[in-house]
Structures are given as structure tokens and as C-alpha cells.
């Protein structure tokens, strides 16, 4: 187990290292830098000022030097300063993470609590009208552009209730906090739930064909016991994987939702930082996200082992 963890950690480090290189150099390929943008509003660029600023920010140095400087700092826990706000990058990034994490968590919860049962029902009732209806609903969840859905939700709630679920940075009560996240989470969660439902359904169909399901029926087990006790336990494995991937995906997928619902989370912040070419923010934030994703994958693998004795016991 120990050797395994070490190997696993090593691979994670390799991936993270790769990501650092990719994001660093990808960002430098993107034309324009912070200096251009800062001066853009003024409508002209003073070459001397520009040179000064580039020097101040260190972006006049060779790329490799910049990279080493960044990654060295990163490893020492020095994340640099935002070019735009001039505040420590960490101070900018950290407070936003829980916001996105809460949103993503709630969306996943929504996704699992809706998607899994509906997926089971759809599989068990395969070929019936109910199955068709559920599949259509789920597919439509995957077909609606999320910003559109979000906007429609907002418009509808203003039109119907004269109220708008906009982000509340300082919720007073637990309920308020929930309300702040619930609507956007439901908007994203709809798509996730659709996906979860699809995977659950196909996984269930696969499992329901297995011999051990026939065995369970031959024992005299009821349909409910067969479907939920015998089948779902097996069918849940690929669902876990998908939820894991979805967790990673959400960080990117939330960009649009955070924009529509005006939630100051990491996703939108990242886009803004890209727009401003705020390298310290983008680089470090992407690294943070990558760490989360990589650990999410790791967790999924671990969960898999927890749920699947075949994996658990071969260790």
C-alpha cells in the first residue's frame, strides 16, 4: 500500500509539473501582456513606461528564467503578486476557492441525488414511456447551453417573483447561505444530473444483464431488492468515476454559471485573470485547480477501491 501511494504521488507530481509547463508557456503564446492591457484603456502606450513596467514585473526576462522563478516560488509557497490588484496572489485566490467548491459540491450533490435514482428507474423501466420521458429530459439537460438556462432562470424568477437569486457574500443564516448557492447549483446540477442519470442507466442496464441478478431473482428476491440492493451496488462504480470527472469538469464548467449568476468564484476569476494576462494569478490558480482535479481523481480511485471488493482485496 505504501509503495503504491508513493508511486501514485509521483505520477501526480509528474502531471502537475507538466501542467505547470503547459500553462506557463501557453500563456506566453497568447499575444499581449498585462502592460499592453493596462495601457490599452489610455489609448496609447508609452514605450519608456512600458519598458519600466515590464522590468518591474520581471516579464522582460527570458521565459526559462521566468518559469524557474515562478515554479521556485511556488514550491516555496511564494505565489507572487497579482499584476492587476498588486495584492499577494494567494490572498486573491484563497477566498474564492470555498465559493466555487461549495457551488460545485452542491451541484454534485444535486446531480447524484437526482441523477442516480432517476437513472435506476429509467433502466429498470427500460423501453417504457417513463424511460423515454426520463431520457428526453436528461438529454435536454445536456443540450441546453448553460448560460441560456441560467439566464432563463433569472428572467423567470424576476418576472414571476420580482426576486432574483443573486450572490450574497455575507449570508446571515444557514438558509440564506443555502439559497445563495441553491439556484446556480441547480442550474449546473441539471446538466450533471442528466449525465449522472445517463451513466447510471447504462451501467444499470449492463448490470441487470449479469448472471448474479438472475441468481438473486432465483432466490426469490423482490424487484426492489434486486434493483437497489443487488444491481445498484454494482452499477454505482462507473457512476463514481463520472462524478469524479464531473467534479473536475465543473471547475471549468462553472465559468459560465458564475458569470451569469455573478458569483465571485475561482472560475470566473480565472477568466478575468486570463483576460488581464495576470500571469501570477492564472498560473497559480490553474495549478490549484490541477491539484484539486488530480486529488479528485485520486479520491475517485480510492472510492472505487472502497466500493469494489475486487480491487480492495487485491492490494
Amino acid at each position, binding site marked *: 500500500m505504501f509503495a503504491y501511494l508513493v508511486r501514485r504521488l509521483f505520477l501526480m507530481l509528474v502531471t502537475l509539473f507538466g501542467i505547470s509547463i*503547459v500553462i506557463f508557456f501557453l500563456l506566453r503564446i497568447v499575444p499581449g501582456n498585462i502592460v499592453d492591457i493596462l495601457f490599452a484603456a489610455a489609448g496609447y502606450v508609452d514605450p519608456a513606461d512600458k519598458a519600466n513596467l515590464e522590468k518591474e514585473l520581471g516579464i522582460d526576462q527570458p521565459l526559462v528564467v521566468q518559469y524557474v522563478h515562478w515554479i521556485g516560488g511556488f514550491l516555496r509557497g511564494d505565489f507572487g503578486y497579482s499584476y492587476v490588484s498588486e495584492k499577494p496572489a494567494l490572498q486573491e485566490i484563497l477566498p474564492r476557492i470555498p465559493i466555487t467548491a461549495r457551488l460545485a459540491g452542491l451541484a454534485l450533490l444535486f446531480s447524484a441525488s437526482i441523477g442516480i435514482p432517476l437513472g435506476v428507474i429509467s433502466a429498470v423501466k427500460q423501453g417504457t414511456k417513463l424511460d423515454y420521458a426520463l431520457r428526453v429530459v436528461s438529454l435536454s439537460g445536456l443540450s441546453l447551453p448553460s448560460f441560456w438556462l441560467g439566464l432563463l432562470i433569472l428572467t423567470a424568477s424576476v418576472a414571476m417573483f420580482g426576486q432574483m437569486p443573486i450572490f450574497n457574500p455575507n449570508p446571515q443564516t444557514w438558509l440564506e447561505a443555502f439559497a445563495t448557492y441553491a439556484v446556480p447549483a441547480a442550474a449546473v446540477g441539471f446538466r450533471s444530473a442528466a449525465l449522472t442519470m445517463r451513466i447510471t442507466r447504462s451501467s444499470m442496464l449492463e448490470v441487470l444483464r449479469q448472471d448474479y441478478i438472475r441468481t438473486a431473482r432465483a432466490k426469490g428476491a423482490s424487484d426492489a431488492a434486486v434493483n437497489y440492493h443487488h444491481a445498484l451496488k454494482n452499477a454505482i462504480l462507473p457512476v463514481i468515476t463520472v462524478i469524479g470527472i464531473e467534479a473536475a469538469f465543473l471547475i471549468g464548467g462553472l465559468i*459560465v454559471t458564475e458569470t451569469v449568476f455573478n458569483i465571485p468564484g475561482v472560475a470566473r476569476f480565472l477568466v478575468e485573470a486570463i483576460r488581464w494576462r495576470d500571469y501570477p494569478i492564472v498560473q497559480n490558480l490553474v495549478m490549484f485547480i490541477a491539484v484539486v482535479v*488530480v486529488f479528485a481523481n485520486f479520491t475517485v480511485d480510492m472510492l472505487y477501491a472502497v466500493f469494489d471488493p475486487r480491487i480492495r482485496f487485491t492490494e
Partner: protein
Amino acid sequence: MATIDYDLELKRAGANATGGWRRVLFLARRHVLGAAGLIIMTVFVFTAIFANVLARFDPLTVDAAHALARPSAAHWMGTDSFGRDVFSRIIHGARISLAVGLGSTALGGTIGVIVGLTSGYLSGWFDLVFQRVSDILQALPLLVLALVMTAALGPSLPNVIIAIAIPLIPTVARVIRANTLALREQPFVEAAKSIGMSEVRIAVRHVLPNTLAPLIVLATAQLGSTILTEASLSFLGLGIPEPYPSWGRMLSESAAEYVRTAPWLVIFPGIAISLAVFGTNLFGDALRDILDPRQRG
């Protein structure tokens, strides 16, 4: 015991559905949703191909006199703020969406297949490198990747296609790789080896054709999601630029200003996108059922 109408049951099972058309009709009836998807996709492709004939107005011509006209006999879906005919733009937009969908799927798919096949086949350092690279690409949020790519390349139709295609590569490659690994263990591949066939030939003649089914299924599913990705990019201001009437941009810009005052600008492109994605998904699902031998009754 209830009496059983054998003919009806057999018809339901598709027993008399032999031969080309009958089989297609049977499958269509069996996979109603898939057939609906196919019809949507066909309409979509047809629209894209014959956009010039179908569109009643030039999609780019500005007409100040008829700006923001409601849907009417002349302008079936109304006009936008420039007085451009929304119906014509949506019809031409099908072309763009198809170009984005097919273009990026084909590009990402082709590279993905080559990489996946090679990596599944040459499980050595190449595979190791591939695995790590795809780990890296998959740990980066897709939209962020596409965002940076379009920013790097500049917003244009080919660049958007490339930006959407690149994150697709590892997805396709992983599927193909897994398939290749499974196929490599198949006796018929071993048989090919035993007659002294070269590895490349085995890969092309025996492995590739047998990965086609999952590839097609994946491609149809991806087709839809690329259209959505383009829309999201447009929403964030990095999609396909004017003058191309991309659905994503039509929707995201109108949505910002006209949700209530000119809802037709928001509703029609939205429906077009959803329908196209919905159609490809429905069709992809049915295709998976049909092509996946395990699903056969």
C-alpha cells in the same frame, strides 16, 4: 394463460424486418428517439448544405428600416437589431455549427485515433508519454483550455475549431487506446500475428476497423458538445466572430440585451442549438444501442 398474438409480438421484435429498408424502418421504430435524432440531424445537415437556397434573405445584409421586427410573414423569426433576418441567419448558422462540430470532431477524432492506436499498440515510452500528456490535458478545465487557445490563436472559425478539437484528442485517444488494448488480446489479432503480419498492418487492418463502432458513438456525442462549447466560448466573447452567423454568438449577445424586449432573438438561436445538440445526442444514443453488440436483444 392469456392468448398471444404471435404476429404482433414478432413484428414488435422486428422479425420480418430483413433486408435494407425494412431493417432501417424497424430500427427506426424500435429506437423512436434515435430516429427523431436522425431526422433532426438530417434536417440540420440539409439546412447547412442548402443554406443558400433556403435562406430568404442575405444573412449579413443590414436593414435599418426593419431592425428588431417581430416574427412575421416576411421575417419568420423576426429580425435582429441590425435588421438582419433571423431565420436566414439561423439557416446559415447551421453551416457554421456543422463546420465547428464536424471540423473539430474530425480533427480531434483523427488525431485522437492515431495517437490512441499508436499508444495502445506501442505500449512503451510513447504510451507513457501519451498517458501523462492526456492526464495533463484532462486536469486542465476544458473551457479554460479552449479559452486560452482561442485567445492565443485569435478568434476565427479555423482557430475555434482547433481550440475545441485539442481538448478532444485525449478523450478520443483514451477510448481508442482502451479498445486497442482489448483488441490486442483477441485471438484474431493473435492469429494475424502468427501468420507474420507486421504490427502496422495489424493495427490498420484488424484493430482499427473494430474500433469504429465506439468511435462513431463517441463522435456523435462529441458533435453535440462541440456546438455547446462554441456557444459557451461565444458567451465569453471568444467564439466565432462576425460576420459568421454563429448560433452561439447570436444567442449570447442577444441574450444579454433582448431577453425581454425582443425574445425571438433569444429563443430561436437557443432552440436551434438545443435541438441540434439534442438531435445528435439522441442519435448517438440509439447508435450506441445498435452498434453495441451487448445491447442486442
